[in-house]
């Protein structure tokens, strides 16, 4: 019996062949990212344990991107304490990605291809969207409560998960992207079949898909109930990684006779842009079902859709147009690198001429950290969640959609099908 890519990665990490259901101890040779001001949380724990060093300071990368320039989370003091903690622990200065060379942790990780194919990629503290990096053929998950333990010991435990295969057949129509595929699949499969498992995305439509769209597919695995998601590396992926990370790697691939808990097949040839109305995350509709619903807020950004492909789609819709006078449209590029590219490609001018606002790269409005929603606001967003209060007031409504749908809706002041603009 063959193995899935996940079983192969975990077997290599364990130093022996492993199967689903087994418990193993693992470590990783690729960087571990720390998103927020986690020196705050690690320091007191180390003191209590009487330890004064981290397992490997060279592998720790601070990415100051969650809150951007917001004063939230006691930012000023926390930022200084993080610097002090880094210095004391011997974390190299070039591993500290502070504002100006940062962005959303999961997008920065992808920009730099830190999650090498065939490796385990982890992120310290609460970061369910760490799975984004599974798009590069890595087994990616957040350490969450176990973070301090890993930072001290360099080890964590894993229950080898079952895999669920989602085969995406057909060719995506114009104006339909990764975001629509992942939402459609979620609507079809629901939050039960993949519980605790790994989603493996395969098929012709995945092969055709940009790396940016693949990141989007893997970003929201948790809404399927899955632990993480992964994509077998192809030539496109290998070239992407090599162009961004000089370190050598040995990719792994699922065997043709590997075993899966479930196999789902979807065809996307006739897919239309999808929309997720509030409040359930897994009730997904075609955008056409909600066309005409008045909105007054828009957001394009987040670890799901704050990448170049999304920025270009927004610009394509906004070019030569102004957003509706009743709308505030927040466009937040995922990283400083993406922001710079938006400037270089002339997208920034289009955004500003359209009268959108462009906060610094960060989680931004997705978590209500910029332009928070007020009571009664209706927002179309590329963010990750639509639960009550996620982007500000609990009395606001959040509709999730692809970047072009958000931009088109902001132009019209109501939920709009973007395909006529593309």
């Amino acid at each position, binding site marked *: 019996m063959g193995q899935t890519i996940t079983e192969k990665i975990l077997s290599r990490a364990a130093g022996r062949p492993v199967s689903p*259901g087994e*418990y193993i*101890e693992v470590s990783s040779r690729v960087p571990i990212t720390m998103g927020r001001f986690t020196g705050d949380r690690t320091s007191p*724990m180390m003191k*209590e*344990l*009487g*330890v004064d060093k981290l397992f490997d300071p060279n592998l720790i990368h601070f990415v100051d991107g969650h809150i951007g320039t917001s004063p939230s989370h006691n930012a000023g003091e926390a930022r200084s304490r993080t610097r002090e903690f880094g210095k004391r622990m011997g974390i190299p200065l070039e591993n500290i990605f502070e504002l100006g060379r940062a962005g959303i942790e999961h997008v920065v990780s992808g920009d730099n291809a830190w999650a090498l194919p065939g490796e385990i990629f982890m992120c310290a503290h*609460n*970061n*369910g969207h760490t799975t984004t990096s599974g798009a590069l053929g890595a087994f990616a*998950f*957040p350490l*969450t*409560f*176990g973070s*301090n*333990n890993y930072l*001290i*010991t360099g080890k964590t*435990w894993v*229950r080898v*998960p079952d895999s669920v295969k989602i085969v995406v057949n057909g060719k995506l129509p114009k104006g339909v992207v990764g975001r629509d595929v992942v939402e459609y699949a979620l609507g079809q499969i629901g*939050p*039960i079949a993949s*519980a*605790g*498992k790994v989603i493996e995305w395969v098929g012709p439509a995945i092969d055709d898909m940009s790396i940016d769209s693949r990141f989007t597919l893997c970003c929201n695995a*948790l*809404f399927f*109930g*899955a*632990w*993480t998601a992964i994509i077998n590396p192809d030539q496109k992926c290998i070239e992407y990684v090599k162009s961004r990370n000089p370190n050598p790697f040995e990719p792994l691939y699922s065997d043709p006779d590997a075993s899966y808990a479930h196999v789902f097949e979807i065809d996307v040839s006739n897919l239309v842009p999808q929309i997720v109305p509030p409040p359930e*995350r897994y009730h997904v509709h075609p955008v056409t079902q909600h066309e005409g619903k008045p909105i007054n807020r828009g957001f394009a950004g987040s670890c799901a859709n704050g990448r170049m492909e999304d920025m270009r789609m927004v610009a394509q819709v906004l070019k030569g147009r102004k957003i509706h006078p009743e709308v505030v449209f927040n466009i937040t590029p995922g990283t400083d690198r993406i922001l710079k590219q938006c400037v270089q490609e002339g997208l920034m001018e289009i955004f500003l001429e359209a009268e959108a606002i462009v906060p610094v790269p960060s989680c931004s409005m997705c978590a209500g950290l910029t332009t928070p929603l007020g009571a009664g606001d209706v927002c179309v967003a590329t963010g990750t*969640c639509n*639960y*009550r*209060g996620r982007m500000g007031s*609990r009395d606001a409504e959040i509709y999730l959609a692809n970047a072009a749908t958000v931009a088109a809706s902001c132009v019209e002041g109501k939920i709009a099908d973007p395909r006529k603009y593309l």
Partner: protein
Amino acid sequence: MTTKLKGRAWTFGDVMDVDWEICPFEIFQQFIAKGKMPTPEDLGQYCMTTVDPNFPKKVKKGDFIVAGETFGYGHDHDHACKAIKGAGVAAVICDSTSGNFFRMSLEHGLPVVQYPGIRKLTAEGDEIELDLAGGVIRNMTKGKEYHFIPYPSFLLEMIEAGGLYPRLKQRAAAGKL
């Protein structure tokens, strides 16, 4: 604690979200906004109240949550495990759970046992004995036994110690870090 637990079952359905049914995330945020990291007891008062407003009052220390599919749906927010512990629940037994909730709970010293179909096999109020080391769920009310693969010894030791950090402290004190 011991790896043999006894209590009554409180039953819940499928897809209980960490940020909504188990404990609304805004409750956690309200504590943080006041500059306080909430304790398990603080959060326990809100445990499952979205589904059953009186649950924290009714549940007795040592009781079990017996739930359906995908218990612990959503983000890797560990306030949910704290809320369950704070309400006095000794363990969660469910048809299935999410990967992050499973890991976080065990690391908080809250056992989560998956047994497909257990929700339908259990009625509210059933007397349950959970033998973690032996891998047995005993429904004393119905006189039935259900077997699962027990956790390996390192996880049993962690749960016995009260979680990942109490265990780490023990190891540090023994000079075994």
